[in-house]
């Protein structure tokens, strides 16, 4: 077969267009470099009416928003899901991992919760703190200037609270709490848990003339048509194009591997076009992988050559290892004090919590080494598929009959509308070598590319943490007179701990470090083995934190981009 090769040699080829790829595109194109962005999915602009879901009513769809085709409901912006037809992945029997992929320009930034938390000083030095995992080769002081710049470039609301491990930043003012959030704040306070305004990348105030200001529809998961929330296309790639950047977008192109020359240096990538199912090659001086932690590991492992027989950048045999996701557990409760609500006002707010509780505990006194933060959900939401299933189930708390039919059901629905409070914990799991993804030699996808096989088990630490979450949730519910719903998940269900991957914060597969024997990338996200290949997704995270990973991906991608520009200038790569 003849593989068509581009004649143009790009300065940089960026694989993937999510948070990491978008930021690299913006910084490298703004610096005048000639950039190719290769994205597995189609073009997507949140402002295009043809693909816009925002402000649609559920009755405009025959399935009323049910999640038949999209895991988070049919109006969710992500093209993809836990399973993608023709692009399987496998699991080692007896282990778990669920992998959410979104193939489109902007990737998962189009639908995420926009919770934008900086890692704190302690988060970069976990091993020093408690002996578990590994320290990062960099500290908060290295990343802080980039967090500051990301805050200003993209916009994030929040408040400066002077907390040691939840650093201050350049925040836009937060929205006021909603009614159920006031209940949460009070209940948490009684339990000794501090709550502060949420930190979300949504514009509550103008930061430039290109992007709109939030109009509080609560639908960030559908991607914002006025660009009032952060998504990679609207905030990074399109602005870079607009300001005259040389950016060529290759959409619907699935990268198979990084190509290398006799000296083992990267020469570009090979990809399969979804349009004609043929293989092509792109040539570039520098390759930046930003396909997501697991997809970038897959590309590296599939990039085998005489010079790199174990896969690219894999002399340490650590590509794919130390895979770890955030922990997650949740519980919902019925709040009698939130019954019979006035529906006189629009309570949609922004598309995620206006308040949250950063980790407050002292792990040295607990049976798990790392913390978690608490997110809150509830309110008078737009009815969608599943609304008021079991409309009067809460009758049981009053000794009333459950069930029935007739006009009285309308009263039941209104009586209980907006009376449920949900609480979720999102915590840090320990990065462990035993948790990994690797190439499954027995399975290929529809493009003939060998797929990933996952092997992941939670340890007792994460399970103990989930137990602590459940006890905490119950205490908060008790404090506000709420009735927890369903059985409290016990040991037999790992205390409700979600399967690895479910929180969609997977990191660590190409972890950074100073020693090429114990890490894949150096402190500038550069492969130890090949100096013209960089990884700017969450793969290089040495450890997670009790934070969401996106803001750190953005900061580190910007930092790596500055380094690439400098190295190119000095002709080092």
């Amino acid at each position: 077969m003849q593989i068509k090769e581009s004649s143009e040699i790009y300065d940089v080829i960026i694989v993937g267009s999510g948070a990491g790829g978008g930021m690299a595109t913006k910084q490298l194109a703004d610096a005048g470099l000639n950039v190719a962005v290769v994205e597995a999915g189609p073009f997507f602009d949140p402002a295009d009416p043809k693909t816009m879901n925002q402000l649609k009513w559920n009755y405009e769809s025959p399935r009323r928003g049910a999640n038949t085709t999209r895991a988070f409901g049919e109006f969710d912006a992500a093209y993809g899901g836990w399973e993608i037809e023709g692009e399987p992945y496998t699991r080692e029997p007896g282990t778990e991992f669920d992998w959410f992929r979104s193939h489109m320009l902007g990737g998962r930034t189009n639908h995420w919760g926009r919770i934008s938390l900086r890692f704190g000083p302690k988060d970069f030095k976990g091993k020093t703190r408690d002996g578990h995992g590994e320290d990062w080769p960099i500290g908060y002081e290295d990343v802080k200037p980039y967090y500051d710049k990301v805050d200003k470039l993209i916009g994030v609301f929040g408040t400066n609270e002077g907390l040691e491990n939840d650093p201050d930043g350049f925040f836009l003012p937060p929205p006021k709490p909603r009614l159920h959030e006031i209940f949460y704040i009070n209940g948490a306070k009684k339990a000794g848990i501090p709550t502060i305004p949420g930190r979300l990348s949504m514009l509550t105030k103008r930061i430039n003339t290109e992007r709109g200001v939030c109009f509080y529809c609560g639908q960030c998961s559908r991607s914002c048509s006025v660009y009032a929330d952060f998504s990679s296309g609207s905030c990074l790639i399109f602005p870079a194009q607009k300001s005259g950047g040389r950016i060529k977008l290759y959409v619907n192109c699935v990268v198979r591997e990084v190509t290398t020359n006799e000296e083992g240096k990267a020469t570009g990538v090979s990809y399969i076009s979804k349009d004609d199912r043929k293989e092509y090659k792109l040539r570039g001086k520098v390759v930046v992988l930003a396909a997501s932690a697991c997809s970038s590991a897959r590309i590296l492992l599939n990039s085998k050559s005489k010079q790199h027989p174990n896969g690219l950048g894999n002399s340490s045999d650590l590509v794919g290892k130390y895979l770890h996701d955030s922990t997650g557990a949740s519980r919902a409760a019925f709040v009698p004090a939130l019954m019979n609500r006035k529906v006189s006002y629009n309570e949609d707010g922004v598309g995620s919590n206006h308040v949250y509780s950063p980790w407050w505990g002292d792990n040295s006194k607990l049976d798990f080494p790392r913390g978690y933060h608490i997110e809150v959900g509830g309110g008078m939401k737009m009815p969608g598929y599943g609304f008021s299933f079991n409309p009067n189930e809460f009758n049981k708390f009053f000794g009333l009959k459950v069930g029935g039919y007739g006009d009285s059901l309308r009263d039941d629905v209104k009586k209980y509308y907006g009376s449920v409070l949900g609480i979720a914990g999102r915590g840090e799991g320990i990065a462990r070598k035993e948790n990994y993804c690797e190439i499954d030699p027995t399975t290929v996808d529809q493009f003939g590319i060998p797929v990933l096989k996952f092997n992941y088990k939670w340890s007792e630490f994460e399970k103990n943490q989930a137990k602590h979450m459940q006890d905490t949730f119950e205490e908060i519910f008790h404090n506000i007179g709420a009735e927890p719903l369903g059985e409290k998940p016990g040991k037999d269900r790992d205390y409700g701990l979600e399967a690895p991957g479910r929180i969609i914060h997977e990191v660590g597969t190409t972890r950074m470090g100073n020693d090429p024997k114990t890490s894949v990338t150096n402190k500038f996200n550069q492969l130890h083995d090949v100096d013209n290949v960089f990884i700017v997704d969450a793969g290089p995270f040495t450890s997670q934190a009790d934070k969401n990973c996106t803001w750190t991906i953005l900061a580190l991608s910007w930092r790596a981009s500055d380094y690439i520009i400098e190295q190119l200038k000095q002709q080092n790569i």
Partner: protein
Amino acid sequence: MDRRKSIKSIILGGVAGGLAINGCKPGTEGEAGAAEALVQEEKHFGRTPEEKELLKKLHAEQFFNEHEMATLGVLCALILPANGTYGSATDAGVPDFIEFMAKDIPAYQTPLQGGLMWLDHKSNKDYGVEFKTATEAQQKEILDAIAFPDKENPTYEQQFFSLIRNLTVTGYYTSKEGIEDLGYKGNSPNVWDGVPEDVLAKHGKSYDPEWLAKCVDQSKRNEMAEWDDEGNLLT
């Protein structure tokens, strides 16, 4: 509609209501008489080609037969009948919604179809008529026996009723009429400025003044953000 213009109008909040209804596609309303399936396909949802294909396929199929659809019409109107202000679930198009969901989630098919047959069986046995033609009193007598499920071990008849009741209620409250009935005020451009005083008072809550002082001053939302070097917002 021109993209920049549509962004602008949403920012200003002017035509957003119209946008939501027309899907920003001029002419959609004018194409009267087109098959419903076609109209559905024409509507924009950011759907992928595969998702559009699935919709087209489901719209081309009919799961319930005429008798079953008529029975659903009677049943849904018993579950949520018309009152002085609003029509019944059937008036709001719920039987068509259930027909679609049975195709969309095939696991519903057997319990729904079997449940409807059981209704006729029971009605025939007790009253010598199919459920849909029984008197309202007879219909209610049948439903009363299955509408309050056993907590531990609900029977299949009770499970059928719970399923059809759930679909009826969700179908109604996601319809245009149901949303109006419920009184939901969102899904439209808004400027959130906190819970109204009367609502706070009703629930015995108040805002912490210290917290409020940190929150956005909505009168300055369109002023460009500027900070000092310490991250204090100046505007």
